[in-house]
């Protein structure tokens, strides 16, 4: 129990070379998506966007270790892991375009709508895992949180429930060192976040979040353990976001630019995995260039899909408030239609 060091535990990896390549492809796609999203925001075609650049290994490594039936409870930054788990890229774009369709994972893809209020979805992950356990299903749940989110009461209550009930859940924390402008040192008096797990009788693992393989292996270990009925795991993936918290702030106000530069040049997760697969002789620079071009096409196609969407259907404000609309909502919907039309409703 408690605060094992991932590097010590696993020599090598559970992954095949092919799998590493697949992860690598995801990471490149996610990075490309992310950069395009930032640009779309700059040109006013989507709203405020939370970039993840720098955190691709943490997200893809995590998503790649999960099974189709598993449940995800993401924050606003989990585009990477959500896409790996089956949320279409266009859905993600739609979310940041303020479209309600952006909250809908496809049928069969168990990804909960993004939770904006920090840490509040962690108890949901715990509850979903609890339900899986009660139903005797083979699915586990993963709740996402940032370093800042560990200060919230909901983090505590979720971790404690998970520990007491020994549930098949992973609380996956991307420690990128900052909660908007607040550095970790003002967030907690502990050195690491993984050590907090002990307070709940939960195993805590700290992993290099820039190493996709290490992240994958940690999550796979935790997932297998959860599926065996051996309870929850807290994983701290140490990472960094290269840019600002979202497109609405300016990280140079509160971070040393050299720090970001250091991470980008010395600890880039894509460079790192690329070096590994090149070294293994299973990847080439030609393939790499083709991959970036392919990613560009994929993202471009998705953007076009987003832009080709009909105008938002105004009725969506009402139609899912309740299973059946009560009288006052029916009347308000009528009034809305008479004033503003139906938007893009068919």
């Amino acid at each position, binding site marked *: 129990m408690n605060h094992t060091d991932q590097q010590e535990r696993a020599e090598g990896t559970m992954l095949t070379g092919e799998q590493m390549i697949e992860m690598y492809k995801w990471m490149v796609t996610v990075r490309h998506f992310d950069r395009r999203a930032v640009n779309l925001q700059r040109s006013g075609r989507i709203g405020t966007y939370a970039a993840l650049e720098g955190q691709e290994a943490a997200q893809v490594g995590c998503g790649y270790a999960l099974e189709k039936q598993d449940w995800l409870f993401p924050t606003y930054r989990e585009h990477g892991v959500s896409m790996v788990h089956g949320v279409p890229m266009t859905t993600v774009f739609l979310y940041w375009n303020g479209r309600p369709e952006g909250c809908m994972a496809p049928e069969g893809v168990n990804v909960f709508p993004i939770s904006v209020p920090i840490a509040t979805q962690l108890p949901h992950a715990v509850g979903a895992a609890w339900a899986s356990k009660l139903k005797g299903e083979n699915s586990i749940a993963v709740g996402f949180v940032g370093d800042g989110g560990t200060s919230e009461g909901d983090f505590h209550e979720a971790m404690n429930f998970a520990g007491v009930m020994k549930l098949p859940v992973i609380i996956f924390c991307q420690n990128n060192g900052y909660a908007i402008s607040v550095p970790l040192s003002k967030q907690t008096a502990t050195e690491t976040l993984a050590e907090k797990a002990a307070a709940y009788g939960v195993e805590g693992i700290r992993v290099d979040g820039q190493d996709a393989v290490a992240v994958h292996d940690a999550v796979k270990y935790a997932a297998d353990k959860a599926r065996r009925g051996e309870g929850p795991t807290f994983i701290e993936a140490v990472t960094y976001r290269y840019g600002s918290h979202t497109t609405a702030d300016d990280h140079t106000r509160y971070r040393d630019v050299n720090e970001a530069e250091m991470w980008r040049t010395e600890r880039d997760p894509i460079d790192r995995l690329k070096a590994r697969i090149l070294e293994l002789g299973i990847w080439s620079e030609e393939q790499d260039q083709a991959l970036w071009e392919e990613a560009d096409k994929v993202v471009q196609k998705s953007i076009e899909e987003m832009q080709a969407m009909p105008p938002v259907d105004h009725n969506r404000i009402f*139609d899912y408030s309740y299973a059946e609309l009560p009288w006052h909502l029916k009347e308000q919907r009528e009034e809305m239609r008479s004033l503003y039309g139906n938007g893009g409703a068919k």
Partner: protein
Amino acid sequence: MAKMNIIQAITDGLRVALRDDPRVIVLGEDVGVNGGVFRATEGLQAEFGSDRVVDTPLAEAGIIGASVGMAVNGMRPVPELQFFGFIYPAVEQIVAHVARVRMRSQGRFTCPMVIRAPYGGGIRAPELHGDSPEAMFVHQPGIKVVCPSNPYDAKGLLLAAIDSPDPVLFLEPMRIYRAFRDEVPEERYTVEIGKANVVKEGTDISLYAWGTMLRVSLEAAKMAKEQHGWDVEVVDLRTLSPLDRETIIGSVQKTGRAVVVHEAPKTAGLGAEIVALINDEALLSLEAPVGRVGGYDAPQPLFSLEDIYAPDAKRILHGIEKVMNF
């Protein structure tokens, strides 16, 4: 048919739900071995096992939040909050999540769950045990709020709530948990959510109440008859959200006068919404301003003052008199 008090009717309703639907799970602080601080879950853990009737850690946000995850993943959780006044730590979970799962996911996920909470003052309990913040949840779209005033409705509304595809806040009038018994069918039945009940017909003035205040209102109605010869119509709202417009408006259209009674502070309480609804729909029927008899706009006091704080028949009668003598 068996005679049951409200608490027995609730236990019976929970038993039926646990028996008929394997998705139902009862959870909360002390609901298991102890059977709840009011004995609402008495015997249920022994009957259905500790997987289905679960003692949780002391953490309201955790209880409601875990219930959200369970509901989304196919269960029908029935979490208990030990007292309605302890719902505050769970407000975030309820208003940001429970009420919004269906909307946020555009129907992809739903959150059918019933949050039970003993409600209202009057049992000489310490602070916050007697708070009545129902207006908070009536204001929040996406969650329904019900409150029975008698054993029959208690079981019927509870089963309707557990069957409901929408989340429901189920408020239990603790002051009258054991106050009286009624005939309650032993089989499954439901009382429709969204329907008020005219418990006493009358022609001079409409009195709207729910939960504990219903019987106090009936008492005031009796006094109004005895002292003034006024014939008071008493409406038990039963469902606080969504309101039963038809019944509420129908009554005041008939009587032309109305008073709303609740324990919560008057300002921005549910009474204000009912006044506003009458304003919207029946202003021209009104022969006097609609009266509001609420708790005072001061925090619920310690119990030596709670009898003076909550409306009693005398104060309700006073409210009726003001409207009748307008």
